[in-house]
């Protein structure tokens, strides 16, 4: 995906983060969110290797770091994904038959954070939808995703299903639906970003 598309996703997510929230950013697109964090909003970054805040803040060991994550003290985790489905199931750590790089903090983050935000390309390298009816890849965590942001769409996971709240300024509703493998409930007031 082109850089400007990746930056668009990061920018939209940064806008979503409330004042004084504690946020953990995964690698890839999530890391780009730092470029758009507004000054004075008091957002603090948590990193699983053991700190909150840079230049003032605090540091701790891994047990404490994951107590913060698992114990529900982290407001947001921004993660990449291979697949997300209608129930908010997340698959992002392995493709069967391929090398398993590991799990790292992904399972704890998706289970523990109050809000799980997925930042990813709308379709795979092969053009296949990554937002699907039911995940086919091994799950990182069931029913934990709250929000999906791609270069095309801003989708909230609700009990009723996936609600399409906003689409990108240079796309159409038809294009978004065509590239999504799951049922989308289109919001009454469909926004643009």
């Amino acid at each position, binding site marked *: 995906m082109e850089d400007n598309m990746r930056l668009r996703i990061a920018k939209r997510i940064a806008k979503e983060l409330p004042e004084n929230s504690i946020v953990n950013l995964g690698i890839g697109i999530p890391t780009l969110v730092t470029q758009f964090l507004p000054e004075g909003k008091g957002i603090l970054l948590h990193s*699983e*290797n*053991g700190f909150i805040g840079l230049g003032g803040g605090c540091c701790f*060991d891994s*047990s404490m770091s994951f107590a913060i994550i*698992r114990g529900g003290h982290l407001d947001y985790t921004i993660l990449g994904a291979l697949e997300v489905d209608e129930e908010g199931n997340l698959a992002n750590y392995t493709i069967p038959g391929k*090398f398993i790089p*590991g799990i790292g903090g992904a399972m704890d983050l998706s289970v523990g954070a109050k809000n799980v935000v997925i930042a990813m390309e709308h379709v795979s390298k092969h053009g296949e939808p990554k937002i699907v009816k039911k995940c086919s890849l*091994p799950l990182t965590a069931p029913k934990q995703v709250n929000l999906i942001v791609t270069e095309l769409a801003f989708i909230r996971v609700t009990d009723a299903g996936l609600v399409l709240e906003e689409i990108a300024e240079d796309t159409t509703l038809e294009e978004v639906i065509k590239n999504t493998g799951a049922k989308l409930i289109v919001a009454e007031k469909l926004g643009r970003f």
Partner: protein
Amino acid sequence: MKPIKTPQQAIEKMKDGCSIMVGGFISCGRPLACLDAIYEKGLKNLTIISNDTSKEETGIIKLVMAGRVSRFIGSYIGMNRIMGEKMKSGEVKIELVPQGTFVERVRAAGAGLGGVLTPTGLGTAIAEGKEVLTVDGKKYLLEKPLKADFAIVKANKADKYGNGFSAGSSKNFNVAMAMAAEYVIMEAEEIVEPGQLDPEKVTFPCVFIDALVQVAKPAKGGK
């Protein structure tokens, strides 16, 4: 007082087939002097318990490349191709654990607990073959304690009682691992007399440490 040893003396009790916890997160807070001594001694058939294998071809990876590691327990091995190849060939038996579960299993072993009840991994492949318990209506996975014969950990500063201070994010897995092994070796860049390390700044209480190893400070810019 704890004995101050050379890396070679400190690892003297290690034998082929033993299990060793190695502190550190990627290249931060790694006890490299003891890893080098293990390599030089030619120890083999080792079980290495460490969050990751780091990026560099030093430390754990050097042991893996030499075929000395038969089992690895950790959370992430994607930093280099070597572990992938060893996993594929079956030369190294690899057990992957979610990072939070990994550290808490180690801590449980050191804290005298019979395991950890965690929601992490429920409904995933990690839960296969494990007991699920319901506490106050909520489901948890039972994860068992993880201990080792030896642990090697890294501190910035230690006193001769074995109290240690670790700066910033170099605390990582070192703290839990210092609690969870039969024999614990702490590498420190500075070893001072008792009383010269502020008790308020102790990361590792001395009770966990069996031997100290004085190591050089890394070059400026290193960790």
